[in-house]
């Protein structure tokens, strides 16, 4: 099953409420997947000070101070590390790709949950409501957030199987459904030099999109190519720091609802995740058509 949610705030007056709204959306979708959860938050000034590069690391059981010292020495700049439950969010005043290279060199066994400017990616195994509380998600701010509640089907229940897959700079992908030809596409991408962190089907979709974007294609073209290449069931939400896009497979049996007002754009697997958003009673609400890419840009 799985549940996905996303909220893109157009009205800056709502930015302080991003975490509160995203928490309610995510927790409402716990019924659709309760073995793991994850979120990507764009623009929280505490987790990711504005304008700094950020990397979110998992499976790194070390004190924050030790990681600050190691990466700081490598980069020659002051590094801040915040432990948000099991995720270490590392920020520095250098581009995130540079920070990512230093983090990978220092900790080759760490799992990179995501990287980008102003982007924190938190994920873990456990019930979504418990995880949201342990992250303090309700207090987060920002202009955009996405979330996922997982009911595993294609790979193990461990941190590497949790969504979001934030595998390209500033990017993030969450998936409700399953890909059936992911093993073939993973082999092809590996042959083209793409590295993987897991055996998860969604990671293949995320790496595919990240490669297309890195090759200079826009998100709409990337998602059209994904539709032509991937077999399976999917509703996907793909974000980067400036955009927010939704696509469903041709059969469209995995649910999706989009709602839009002047203040925000939101999507979720089910309407009930959107029912608490301010002004939802006057929102334009619709179900996305199969294989149509819906995209919004900031």
């Amino acid at each position, binding site marked *: 099953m799985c549940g996905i949610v996303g909220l893109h705030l157009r009205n800056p007056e709502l930015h302080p409420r991003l975490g509160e709204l995203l928490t309610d959306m995510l927790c409402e979708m716990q019924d659709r997947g309760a073995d793991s959860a994850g979120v990507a938050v764009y623009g929280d000034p505490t987790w990711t000070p504005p304008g700094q590069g950020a990397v979110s690391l998992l499976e790194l059981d070390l004190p924050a101070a030790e990681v600050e010292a190691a990466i700081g020495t490598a980069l020659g700049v002051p590094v801040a590390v915040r432990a948000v439950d099991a995720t270490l969010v590392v920020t520095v005043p250098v581009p995130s790709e540079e920070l990512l290279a230093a983090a990978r060199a220092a900790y080759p066994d760490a799992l990179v949950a995501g990287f980008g400017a102003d982007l924190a990616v938190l994920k873990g195994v456990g019930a979504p409501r418990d995880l949201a509380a342990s992250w303090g998600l309700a207090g987060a701010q920002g202009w955009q957030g996405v979330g996922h509640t997982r009911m595993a089907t294609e790979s193990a229940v461990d941190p590497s199987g949790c969504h979001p897959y934030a595998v390209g700079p500033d990017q993030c992908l969450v998936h409700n459904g399953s890909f059936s030809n992911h093993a073939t596409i993973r082999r092809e991408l590996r042959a083209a030099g793409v590295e993987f962190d897991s055996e998860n089907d969604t990671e293949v979709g995320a790496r595919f999109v990240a490669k297309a974007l890195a090759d200079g294609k826009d998100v709409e073209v990337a998602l059209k190519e994904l539709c032509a290449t991937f077999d399976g069931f999917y509703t996907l939400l793909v974000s980067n720091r400036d955009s927010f896009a939704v696509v469903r497979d041709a059969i*469209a049996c995995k649910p999706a609802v989009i709602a839009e007002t002047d203040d925000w754009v939101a999507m979720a697997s*089910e309407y*009930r995740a959107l029912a608490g958003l301010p002004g939802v009673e006057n929102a334009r609400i619709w*179900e996305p058509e*199969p294989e149509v890419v819906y995209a919004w840009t900031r």
Partner: protein
Amino acid sequence: MDPLTPRPHDRHFDLARDSLREVNAALHAPDLEGAVTIDNPAGAHSVAVGLDAPVRVSINGHVGYYAAGMNQQAEVTIDGNAGTGVAENMMSGTVVVRGNASQSAGATAHGGLLVVEGDAAARCGISMKGVDIVVGGDVGHSTAFMAQAGRLVVRGDAGEGLGDSIYETRIYVRGEVASLGADCVAKPMRAEHVEELAGLLKAAGFEDDDPSSYTRYGSARTLYHFTAANKY
């Protein structure tokens, strides 16, 4: 009788306060009659399922999956959108959705009338077995897939694969059909079809439509039997 005058049997529920189980249990009470209103459904699943009483139920807001499923006798109005499988397996009564319906509206339903005033998504009327469905707007792909009996009226357009592997359901579409599914064909509108369609449109509140502007679709019946001397 003035529908606005409260009567002794009328009940009011608020799903922001009352549990769904409590509400559905009250709707299953023996000898239920009168009118029931349900506020703040907030996308909840299975609202007003399994009713079997001559009661009028008004749901004020959007509902989740399977709303009014398995309905018998009741007149259920949803003043909002409905999620997957609204009125699935309805046996009798009426279900009206004032907004749009998600996929599989009226799936497998045996009887009664389902009206979706807005659009219905994919697989509307899949495997319908005798229900009448009237959709005010468009329907999505694979609508009336394996539809066995009953009538489906679409005032707008139909998506890909309309009526694939259809049995004896009669389909009336006013707009464009993106493509017909296997064994579904256009058929002439004879006088009895115009009359039947006029009755369905009237029952659904669209009596101003001109029935002759619709096209009838149904089974070519070529899938009913194995072809003798089948050659592959």
